[in-house]
């Protein structure tokens, strides 16, 4: 038995029997997460692609629609997500150093930031609901058409902008909700003392997911809120 690479490894409870070493197990987990994130890039990439094509075709409607959403709420949400990414990174570091209470605290703060993001997003959506800018039967953009008399705005094309806006921010918010769920699980396990300097892979992998959702927003923010903010001609 002693010549088997599996047998020479001291078996900690975290190490599954089909891995040769804890390092191999960790590499396999993070590699699997990165593969998943690659599929997520294509998932969001399809919507980014649709947005770019329709913006090219219906530029006036996209510019006017983009200017009707609140840049300050968008900027605050960007800052909130960046802060949450910092607390995730510090949380992984706390796990690496075996600081259990610090890890639990940082995971909780991350979730508070995540929920704050969703709350601000909810305020934005509610504003759009009150303005009748949500695609559907009561969709009405007369206010936007009135604001920009210098350009021609077709309400049907404006509806495409808002459909993409709600699809993209909605799917991003769904990812945030799933992220808060994952972090609830991580916080519970961390509180129970499941993670140690020799085993913190779930925190690392959950953190990768959270950072990825942050990166999606880093691109959504300029595309939806910023690039048409300059004066319309």
């Amino acid at each position, binding site marked *: 038995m002693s010549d088997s690479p599996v047998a020479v490894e001291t078996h900690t409870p975290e190490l599954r029997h089909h891995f040769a070493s804890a390092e191999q197990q960790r590499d396999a987990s993070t590699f699997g997460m990165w593969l998943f994130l690659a599929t997520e890039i294509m998932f969001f990439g399809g919507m980014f692609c649709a947005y770019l*094509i329709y913006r090219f075709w219906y530029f006036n409607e996209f510019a006017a629609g983009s200017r009707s959403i609140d840049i300050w709420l968008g900027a605050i949400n960007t800052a909130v997500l960046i802060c949450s990414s910092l607390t995730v990174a510090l949380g992984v570091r706390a796990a690496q150093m075996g600081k259990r209470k610090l890890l639990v605290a940082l995971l909780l703060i991350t979730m508070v930031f995540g929920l704050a993001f969703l709350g601000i997003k909810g305020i934005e959506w509610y504003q759009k609901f009150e303005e009748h800018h949500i695609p559907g039967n009561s969709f009405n953009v007369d206010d936007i058409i009135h604001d920009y008399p210098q350009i021609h705005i077709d309400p049907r094309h404006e509806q495409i902008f808002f459909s993409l806006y709600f699809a993209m921010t909605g799917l991003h918010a769904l990812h945030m909700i799933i992220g808060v769920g994952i972090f609830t699980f991580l916080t519970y396990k961390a509180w129970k003392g499941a993670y140690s300097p020799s085993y913190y892979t779930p925190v690392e992998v959950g953190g990768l997911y959270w950072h990825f959702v942050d990166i999606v927003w880093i*691109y959504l923010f300029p595309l939806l809120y910023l690039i048409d903010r300059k004066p319309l001609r």
Partner: protein
Amino acid sequence: MSEHIMSSKLYYGIWIALMCLTAITAAVSFIDLGPFNTIVALVIATFKALLVVLFFMHVKYTSEKMTKAVIVSAIFWLFILLALSLADYTTRLLS
């Protein structure tokens, strides 16, 4: 993956850089740069994403080459998706 423990000072530094870039990109969006508004906004976003990937996601310190291969392939696939789709749709009006 990375056993390397980064100093918390570096994390705070990256955080400050990300916050500053967010403020800059929001401020620049009000200045009329013509077509360059989009380019500047996307370059800043890419720089922010790069900071997150390299430091917060520990890619700079990982010895695992497969992770980097996955990231490069994912970006390449995204490039194929965007380049071929936009090459079609943006040139249809020319004919």
